[in-house]
């Protein structure tokens, strides 16, 4: 039987989604459900003086209003394990006091029998404030910038090697420019949404989240209840892109209101509210200095990023992280600074750090190439990093040069003219641009449970979730191979916090993290089945050794004589078993230093860990020595662009992304992920940006009419290719993550193509018509 991994099978949940049968967080039919509507602050800083709800409470159907005056007290989970959930704004647990730190902050929840009644009542609530002067605008407050102690997830934020200043003095060629990127919002189709239901002291929550396990941990800690009393479901998620990675106030407000009014409560943020109280990609100001010799060899790289965060938590957009490893340079200085503003807190957004960071670095590289009168592709090859120079480690697998080669061929790079503004098609100027894509490959400890049923079907349970990326489908393929069954016989169940703990859907880590334990658990079941047959005198395989027996398409048989064997069902039926189970936990983590943290005694994970000690697949996986390797995915992005120079109108003619992401698990979902990332990049390059009012600091462009994302007419022919070379060090499956790399590099490739077309170097995203005619 051919392996299922690698086959471009259709999404297993595709039909459910297109027919509307898939249940998203806000869509669960709950008896006696009532509706919450959030009232948010209309000042940027200050205190809530009074909330007059007298008129609102007279609206028929209104049950009550929850404010900081009457809401329950929450506990901040100090020093908790971040894998148990991160609240996005640690100093702003909702409705705990009257302070306002930003416009659009939740200040009250009105609850009514219907959504319409709650909406009507919300509009009648009159709030008065003590308004205070707010801190508005990163540029105006640049003198308050400070260096954060650490970056995303406790990683490094200040990175140095060699002596940049000295190297710059002797550099034959130098470029120094500042690149700026605006605030971007994720704008997942599904807004943040929560349903909460209490049954006695047991809480059930349906949440739009990238981490059911994180929400479970966080709710237990903040509400002060035992984790086993919290049940979280996220069966289908309408996109997250990072915005649902941390937990936002809505996830707490729904159970708080449900408790207060003793009814199950649904709370869905409006599109406008998502723009204030549910994260964003922070604005960046990035100064990049490159020093090179006459041949283009880099001697020094300096990348200084200033971004903004809120007054209620710290989030660092680590734009310089990729710079520390992408090119070979003996001297490097990567730094990050933060300015606090009265805005909601930023959070990861598809390739946090790398997306804006590769924009700035890869445009800077293009500028250096132009100064050297060198093909920008050649400059990348000259400075190719053969090893991870900061950590001084080998890459587990790197085929970047092949990405460049194939991308250049596919776009027709040879047609590019070195001199900008010299190539024309009709009224349009034509330009070609390229850039390198990169994103770290992450993997974290995960657990899964496999069950084989007597009817020959199988099931996987894993406490991760599919945020729309195709996890259900790809893990069905992994499990099918582990069970040696066709994918249609395997049901993968995710998005349930009572399942064995799986990875958070963030950092492009799900496939690499939950794939191995799912595979190992399925293999574990088959191993148990084989051993049952061996010890069963009625089995044709009785008395053989396990290594002499293979599994294939629902049947076990002798390796040397495939005719001698029997089906899984035959073994189980004879044994009187209705099911056969195995659990597996893999403790491999690419981020955690030192030995893995053992699962808490008595937890489901501890049982899986115990069982994994005799699971060959887990043992082999964990035996792999990873400490000498750096894990990164790479890619090359190529763009052909047409520009109408008089009107500043830009048409992307073609984009090509060639990706080196290890094993391609499913060509369809993988292509879809990369294509989606590249389209995100088109938005980032050409139109997306969130504007804040310069006078009061509140979001002005807060719906999809004002915040433009690309439409079909903006999207050109997109060609996605994969190297498809397994990374045997990251896992036995060989796949690195794929969710984020597609957006890296593409923005720079577009900007570089526009420069090649027009000779105009726009260093401030997005590149809109006004900037090209200026």
């Amino acid at each position, binding site marked *: 039987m051919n392996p299922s991994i690698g086959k471009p099978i259709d999404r297993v949940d595709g039909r459910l989604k297109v027919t509307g049968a898939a249940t998203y967080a806000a869509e669960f039919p709950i008896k006696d459900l009532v509706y919450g509507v959030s009232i948010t602050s209309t000042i940027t800083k200050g205190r809530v003086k009074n909330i007059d709800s007298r008129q609102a409470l007279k609206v028929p159907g209104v049950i009550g209003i929850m404010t900081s005056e009457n809401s329950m007290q929450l506990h901040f989970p100090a020093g908790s394990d971040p894998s148990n959930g991160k609240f996005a704004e640690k100093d702003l647990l909702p409705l705990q006091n009257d302070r306002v730190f930003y416009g659009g902050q939740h200040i009250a929840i009105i609850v009514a029998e219907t959504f319409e009644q709650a909406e009507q009542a919300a509009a009648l609530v009159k709030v008065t404030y003590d308004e205070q002067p707010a801190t508005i605008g990163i540029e105006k407050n640049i003198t308050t910038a400070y260096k954060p102690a650490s970056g995303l997830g406790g990683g490094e934020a200040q990175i140095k090697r060699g002596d940049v200043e000295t190297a710059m003095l002797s550099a034959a060629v130098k470029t120094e420019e500042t690149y700026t990127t605006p605030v971007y919002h994720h704008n997942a189709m599904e807004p943040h949404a929560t349903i909460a239901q209490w049954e006695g002291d047991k809480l059930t929550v349906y949440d739009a989240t990238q981490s059911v396990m994180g929400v479970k941990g966080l709710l237990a800690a903040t509400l002060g209840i035992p984790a086993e009393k919290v049940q979280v479901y996220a069966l289908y998620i309408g996109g997250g892109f990072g915005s649902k990675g941390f937990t936002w106030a809505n996830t707490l407000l729904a159970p708080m209101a449900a408790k207060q009014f003793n009814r199950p409560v649904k709370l869905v943020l409006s599109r406008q509210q998502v723009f204030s109280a549910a994260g964003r990609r922070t604005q960046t100001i990035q100064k990049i200095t490159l020093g090179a010799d006459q041949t283009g060899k880099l001697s020094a790289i300096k990348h200084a990023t200033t971004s903004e965060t809120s007054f209620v938590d710290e989030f660092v957009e680590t734009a310089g992280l990729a710079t520390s490893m992408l090119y070979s340079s003996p001297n490097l200085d990567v730094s990050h600074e933060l300015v606090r503003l009265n805005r909601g807190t930023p959070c990861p957004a598809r390739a946090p750090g790398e997306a804006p960071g590769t924009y700035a670095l890869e445009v800077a590289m293009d500028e250096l190439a132009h100064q050297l009168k060198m093909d920008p592709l050649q400059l990348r090859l000259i400075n190719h990093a053969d090893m991870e120079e900061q950590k001084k480690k080998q890459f587990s697998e790197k085929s970047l040069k092949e990405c460049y080669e194939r991308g250049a061929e596919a776009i027709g790079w040879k047609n590019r003219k070195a001199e900008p503004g010299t190539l024309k098609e009709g009224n349009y100027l034509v330009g070609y641009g390229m850039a390198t894509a990169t994103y770290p490959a992450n993997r974290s400890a995960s657990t899964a449970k496999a069950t084989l049923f007597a009817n020959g079907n199988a099931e996987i349970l894993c406490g991760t979730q599919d945020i729309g990326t195709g996890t259900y489908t790809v893990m069905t393929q992994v499990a099918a191979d582990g069970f040696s069954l066709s994918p249609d016989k395997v049901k993968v169940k995710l998005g349930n916090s009572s399942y064995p703990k799986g990875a958070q859907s963030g950092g492009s880590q799900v496939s690499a993290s939950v794939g191995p334990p799912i595979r190992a658990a399925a293999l574990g079941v088959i191993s148990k089945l084989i051993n049952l047959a061996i010890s069963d005198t009625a089995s044709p395989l009785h008395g053989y050794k396990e290594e002499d027996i293979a599994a294939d398409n629902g049947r076990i048989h002798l390796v040397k004589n495939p005719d001698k064997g029997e089906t899984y069902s035959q073994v189980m039926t004879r044994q009187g078993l209705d099911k056969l189970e195995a659990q597996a936990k893999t403790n491999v983590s690419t981020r955690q230093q030192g030995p893995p943290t053992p699962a808490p005694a008595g937890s489901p994970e501890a049982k899986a860990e115990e069982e994994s000690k005799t699971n060959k697949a887990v043992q082999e996986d964990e035996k792999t020595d990873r400490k000498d390797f750096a894990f990164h995915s790479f890619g090359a992005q190529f763009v052909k662009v047409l520009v109408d120079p008089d*009107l500043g109108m830009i048409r992307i003619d073609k984009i090509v992304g060639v990706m080196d992401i290890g094993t391609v698990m499913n060509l369809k979902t993988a292509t879809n992920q990369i294509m989606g990332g590249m389209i995100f990049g088109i938005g980032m390059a050409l139109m997306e940006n969130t504007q*804040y009012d310069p006078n009061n600091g*509140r979001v002005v*462009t807060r719906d999809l009419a004002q915040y433009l994302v690309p439409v079909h007419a903006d999207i050109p022919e997109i060609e996605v290719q994969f190297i498809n070379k397994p990374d045997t060090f990251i896992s036995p499956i060989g796949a690195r993550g794929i969710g984020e790399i597609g957006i890296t590099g593409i923005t720079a490739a577009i900007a570089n193509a526009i420069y090649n077309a027009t000779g105009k170097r726009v260093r401030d995203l997005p590149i809109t018509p*006004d900037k090209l005619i200026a």
Partner: protein
Amino acid sequence: MEPFKLIRVQDGQSAINATLTAGSKFIAGGTNMLDLMKLNIETPKQVIDINKLSLYQIEELPNGGIKIGALVKNSDLAYHPAIAKKYPVLSEALLSGASPQLRNMASVGGNLMQRTRCPYFYNADFVCNKRVPGSGCGAIAGYNRNNAILGTSAQCIATHPSDMCVAMAALGAIIHVQGVKGVKTIPFSEFHLLPGQTPHLEHNLRQGELITHVEIPPIAYAARSHYLKVRDRASYEFALTSAAVILDIQNGRILKSHIALGGIGTKPWRADLAEKVLNGAIANQQTYRAAAEAALSQAKGYKDNSFKIELAKRTLVRALTTTGGIS
């Protein structure tokens, strides 16, 4: 949204009678009205559904003009053979607006009545003289990249969003209205109002008046016409700048021109200053550029939208060049 009473009427007179109830609003396609109601910007007590009225005809008149029922869908108008042939500028303008789904719902009368997309108007957290008279204008000192540069006042710089209206301004359409006192017509140039001191007053309809038809006068040479729209994305976005151009050219000379601009005015902007330059002049680049300079001579840029002055000129020059060629 506030609760409201919905009534469905079968004829124009019933529709007009129904408006005697205070706080009444007509609804047709609802593509703008419903959004505004959800945001509590429009809070009608009674919504009068006029979709049952027999105003769906596109009639070619004996004089060569066309009479369009107020309920004709934007898409039906755009694809009507007579419009596409005799008034391509109108067809192109309609098809450059919104998305196919919206054009299938939106009516001609509703398009005339649609309100600005100025974010300060849409956002109740901010002041807006159009939404709450006398509260102030958030846009003038705020983020105003998409706001107007012509016809603005100290009270309001909101852009009129319509594409269709720009073509109709160029064509000199006539609005037919039925009211309590009978029927009347309003020339297009008098239908929309400049903001002045009263930005909340946007049109010349009185309470109880219903748009029944829009008449496009006969313009024999309007087959030579064009609508050009510049925007931040390729579809489904309002204009940064746009130009509707109709030219009567004979032997390289412009005998008569009709020019209107979009994306830049507080109302659909008939550029008569440009027409003065064009009429009688040779059809060439110098003429076109001079016309564009004249069209924008009164323009006033704000913090984020001064680029529109030059972009609007270039848009008009390109539209003129495409339509008129170069002699």
